[in-house]
């Protein structure tokens, strides 16, 4: 049986850099980032948009990249965990997660950091409850969320106070 | 002789005895002598057991020394997650 896959040429911007790739129309943005661009920071935990491990920003909006098709990235701006630090300067959330031991196995960490960065942009002074509801779509099985929530609240406080 | 405490489910293989006395100076000898005295225990030992000697759970440390007055327990094999 012969099957010629029809692929689409996608031109997009990832973490500020112009990139292009050929995507099968069925391929997710997550698979394209990982398998075609070598950006493996976003993880597939479920493939159904329930765990948030694949969180990226698409034109500034937080999305599960497993629910976006690769071809939908055409002409848009994608931001992944790999673009969160400026060179070697960690984003304050990244530094605070290490300082607060807010990760154990670390597989959910990229998604949680991307999601939390989006939260703090929207709401620089979230309550504990607001952080918990914002992160309700990012599953962590190791930590019980305690140290994650504390790290987010501490980062928000530092950013507000200009520390 | 060392008194070896078995779990009671094993009485079926030891003519009803829950404590079996064997001549042994190591855990390996204890297991060997148990099977010699009660061949029905062979599949039990082969399937795996944990051994406790004087309150230390020595697992399957065959070389671990056993004294005549040692308290020895044969326990079900431990597993972890």
């Amino acid at each position: 049986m012969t099957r010629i896959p029809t692929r689409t040429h996608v031109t997009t911007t990832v973490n500020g850099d112009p990139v292009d790739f050929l995507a099968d129309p069925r391929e997710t943005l997550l698979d394209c980032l990982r398998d075609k661009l070598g950006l493996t920071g976003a993880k597939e935990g479920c493939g159904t948009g329930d765990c948030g491990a694949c969180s990226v920003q698409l034109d500034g909006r937080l999305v599960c990249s497993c629910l976006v098709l690769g071809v939908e990235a055409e002409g848009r701006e994608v931001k992944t965990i790999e673009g969160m630090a400026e060179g070697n300067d960690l984003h304050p959330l990244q530094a605070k997660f290490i300082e607060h031991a807010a990760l154990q196995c670390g597989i959910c960490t990229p998604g949680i950091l991307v999601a939390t960065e989006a939260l703090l942009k929207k709401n620089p002074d979230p309550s504990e409850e607001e952080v918990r509801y914002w992160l309700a779509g990012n599953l962590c099985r190791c930590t019980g969320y305690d140290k994650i929530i504390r790290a987010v609240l501490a980062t928000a406080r530092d950013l507000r106070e200009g520390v | 002789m060392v008194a070896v405490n078995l779990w009671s489910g094993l009485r079926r293989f030891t003519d009803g005895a829950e404590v079996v006395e064997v001549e042994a100076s190591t855990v390996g000898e204890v297991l060997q002598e148990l099977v010699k005295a009660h061949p029905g225990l062979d599949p039990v030992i082969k399937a795996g057991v944990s051994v406790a000697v004087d309150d230390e759970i020595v697992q399957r440390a065959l070389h671990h020394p056993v004294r005549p007055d040692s308290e020895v327990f044969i326990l079900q094999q431990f597993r972890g997650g």
Partner: protein
Amino acid sequence: MALDNKTDFKYIGTRPERPDGLDKVTGKARYGADAYAPGMLHGAVVRSPHAHARIVRIDASKALALDGVKAVVTRADFAQDLEGEDWNLLENTIAGEKVLYDGHAVAGVAATSALIAKDAAKLVDVEYEVLPHVTDVDAAMAEGAPVLRDGAADHSVPDGLHPNVVRYTEFGRGDVEAGFAAADLVIERSFKTEAVHQGYIEPHACLAQLGTDGKGELWCCTQGHWFVRRMCAALLGLEATQLRVTASEIGGGFGGKTTVFIDPIALALSRKSGKPVKLVMSRSEVLKASGPTASASMDVKMGMTKDGKLTAATGTFRMQGGAFPGAPMDMTTMLAFSCYELDNVHHEGFDVMTNRPKQAAYRAPGAPMGAFAVESVFDELCEGLGLDPIDARLKNAVKEGTRSSFGPKYKAVGLIETLEAAKAHPHYSAPLAENTGRGIASGYWMNWGGETSVSLAIGEDGTVQVGVGTPDIGGSRASMALMAAETIGIPYENVRVNVVDTAALGVNEPTHGSRATYASGLATIEAAREAIGKLCQRAADKWGIDVDAVEWKDGAAHPSGPNAGDFEPLSIAEIAGEMGSTGGPITGHHDASPTGFGGSFGTHIVDVHVDPETGRSTVTRYTVIQDAGKAIHPDYVEGQFQGGAAQGIGWALNEEYIYGEDGRLQNDVFLDYRIPVASDLPMIDTVIVEVPNPGHPYGVRGVGETGITPPLPAIACAVSHATGHRMTRLPMSPPRVLRAIQGKGVS
């Protein structure tokens, strides 16, 4: 190995940043699915849609005709002469004559892309003859239940039991009937828990390469790569050391990654196609076809005097472990009454097969179910006799010298200390809101030693590398580095700990049984001590004195004693800088199966609010108090406490495997198999109790597993107190709690 009785720690007990933190917050850390190889193929697995069926025929011709498909493997491509547990493992990895559960693997496909592999898997034509199935533990033991496999029962099973009962245990001591007669109150209850999944966020993933010469390379996410090597070598007919296994960073395991599911299939596909093959499970495959925990049906009876002393206890524990022997009824029985001093106690355990996936270990495997039943009855006894549940526990709590319910006496343990800390904690005396109940429960995990091999080498600049064989799941590299730094007397930052591959060390058991920080830590300390001995010898040679006159402190050799002479101390960097010309590299190594692992007791306090309209339970406050022996890196000890509590909350309130009448899993995605999310939980307070383990130089006890044992009963007791109805069935989902509130029972 004995306790040092050292108390003036410089590094141990501090909270430095973990060495893998930077890679993990920047997305650089490489997990199971993050590996690629030149010329790599992608695999997919063909799985059974039936709970129980005979395989009549497998026709892969259409799949093989698809462009890009390079290989299809079935059972015929694996070792043919296996028996015992190896046969069970192979039969679970890829079905032989019958499929035994929904999701059971039947064939593997490798193709040039993941999409083609998935398409090809759908084209593999499998003809089944469907057989009757059973998925419930009690139903599987009943007369007339479908038999999964005749002759699967081992020597332990007495005559007359259903063939699905494959292992049996019975033990105890004293006279339980006399004990019950001496009690002022006797309570007997039946309990049931559902199977739950470990729920690690990273699905199983591997990249395999195997040649026809029998040499292979395997990259995979696992808790123990030597276990993977042994299992894969057996299933593929390889020599163990010809297969090199590298453990990737691991995205959670909790026991579920101590065995193999897809790795042997990927290796077989690679051997057949001659190319590297990457194989990654979907979440649905993880839930259907990896190893969830056992479900349980239990009867517990306990008697107590009016002043709170237990007089007797009996328990029957029926555990369902899927289509193979192995449900953890041995640990359930041994640990069920482990918190209490009991002269009269009796246990009975059954390991029962059903048409479900082969269970795997899950954090303190078997212990939480037994604790749920026993601690619930204990709570009801206290309620009936008007006793404070902590005071009553203190009356019965085991301590050093108490004979355990399973036989040997305890060495130094910290149950009483956790109970006293619980009683003193402000949480215990805080007022309760309306419709809110408070639950208390204790639990135990005995921990583990296991095969351990560690190598340490001094760099030419005096820094130190440590190679360990226990994958780091929760920060153990930081703990090893702290122990090495403490022992050698150099800064934490000067130690790098690596999890090395199977070619680099002797056999290591996995990171399981709460053993990594204990056993690899102990071996790290011993390896460091060996290296220190060599460093001292180099200094002695240089000074021309006897090595006995050299003392190692603060990372340097010092002359010591009246006849040592007067020399300037030699630092580790100075000695290391000259090592090439003073005798060569300086290393330390330690191999052991250490047996001084000390068990860890914990006591949890929880407040649960129950909505009387909907039956929804919300945990409003949670406190974990547990004995860590000595907390090496307290952040990650707290993390284990909090993680165990959160998983226990999920098990108690939400999580369950739901099988339909057709024997198929109904909830195979995270939307329906709902683990706790951030908005479900409160902060989880922790108190670290430190009763040093006499079997470790620095007093370490494993802490990973105990934390999931008390939550089930603690939460059940809290819900019972909030509603006035004793909850004997998990999960306490809203419909079930509502039925209880409405007086319609708890089943």
